[in-house]
């Protein structure tokens, strides 16, 4: 069957989709978006976490046909890199211009704040769980009106398994990202208040 789905803001079409196929398979194997990872295929590990109509889900548990006409955002969409890869053939991670990012360490240009914080906090080891954690942490921070407490972060990430890090640095990364998002929101609020800081 054919599945029409909007992914990272772009309308996409997948053909010859098997009726029992998952959204995860469609994203990875038919639309060239391998960011969401395929591991447990039973919703236990969270490595395939994506947004479906603004809510985080395990893409392995969404039947492809259920995504028809809906809006999906993958980890590629957070960094603005998703649209480049539409049409099937995966883009082989083009390196950023070295003149733009010539400091030692990974290039951080274009990354979402959550991704940046994962890099800065050293929250990535093998990296397999990272895309799912990034999307889930992104949702936690986007939906919070204040910096979440540790218990809330742990609860939000309870369905994302990491077998390398012991989670401490992942928590550091999420705390950092949440604090920055909160600080930015506070600044923006101050600007929008009459008599607040001019810009």
């Amino acid at each position, binding site marked *: 069957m054919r599945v029409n789905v909007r992914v990272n803001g772009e309308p996409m079409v997948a053909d010859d989709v098997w*009726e029992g196929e998952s959204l995860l398979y469609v994203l990875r194997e038919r639309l060239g978006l391998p960011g969401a990872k395929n591991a447990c295929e039973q919703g236990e590990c969270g490595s395939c976490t994506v947004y479906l109509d603004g809510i985080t889900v395990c893409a392995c548990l969404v039947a492809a046909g259920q995504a028809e006409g809906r809006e999906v955002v993958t980890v590629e969409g957070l960094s603005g890199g998703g649209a480049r890869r539409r049409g099937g053939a995966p883009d082989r991670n083009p390196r950023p211009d070295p003149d733009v990012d010539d400091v030692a360490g990974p290039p951080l240009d274009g990354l979402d704040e959550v991704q940046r914080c994962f890099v800065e906090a050293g929250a990535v080891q093998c990296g397999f769980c990272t895309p799912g954690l990034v999307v889930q942490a992104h949702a936690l921070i986007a939906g919070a009106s204040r910096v979440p407490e540790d218990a809330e972060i742990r609860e939000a990430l309870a369905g994302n398994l990491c077998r390398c890090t012991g989670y401490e640095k992942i928590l550091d990364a999420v705390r950092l990202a949440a604090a920055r998002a909160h600080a930015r929101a506070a600044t923006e609020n101050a600007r929008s208040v009459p008599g607040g800081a001019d810009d």
Partner: protein
Amino acid sequence: MDFLRPATWEDALAMKAARPDATPIQGGTDVMVEINLDKGRPTALLDLNPVAELARWSWTAGPAPMLRVGAGVTYTRLISELGTWLPGLAQASRTVGSPQIRNRGTLAGNLGAASPAGDGHPPLLASGALVEAESVRGTRLIPIIEFYTGVKRNALEGDELIRAVHVPPAAGPQCFAKVGTRNAMVIAVCSFAVALDVRARRAGTGIGSAAPTPRRAHAAEEFLAGELDWDGAGPLDPALAHRFGELVAEAAAPIDDVRGRADYRRHALAVMARRSLGWAWAERGSVPGTSDASGTYHQKSGENG
């Protein structure tokens, strides 16, 4: 495999009548696991996501209004929108899977799968819920106690779909407890729910994952109705709580399996029942339904969030 996409509830009923072999899929958190791991391959999937009305909840009419929870209401929404009236169910819902699973999974899916370990079953049993099942032949309300007919078997006919679950609002404190290896992503080793109706001097119970089907502990309920000092202001009598736990354990018929031994399950049930009763007793008076303000809760209805 066929993929059926009804646009309306009427379409869904017609499709299910024409294809009784079709497996309804809502959140997919059970159905897709079966397919992904090749444990079973449905001949057809009937996708209920497009039927928008299923994602709504409302109050039923009549002198004793119940919450009519549409088959598409997710656990996440059940917790955030209905927790005030259905505290036991909300508590159980919070133990389901992970945030991602609760964002997709539904109570109706729990009922459709009818696993004895489903977290939604004990609180539904404890509060005396009704399952609204419908086919092209008509609608029937199945009392929850009659709904579970065997391991992963329920009372639905081949052409029937679950449209909603009717749950009475709490008439007193409710508690849910569950044993598992960690807090998240845990299928219950065993679970227990209690619901007290202080005014009516009645207790409801539900046992999960300790018999071929979820079940009530009738003798334990009768014991509480007769022996609990319903007007008492003091703490719960420890001997009474202990006896209640024993009666709950006696009502179970657990097996040895990979998650736990039968004798462990019986022991854990007795402990959970005793503690849940204690927690519920300590909470009485602070739950809607036990105060005179309960009527004011019967106003709002939910739309698809």
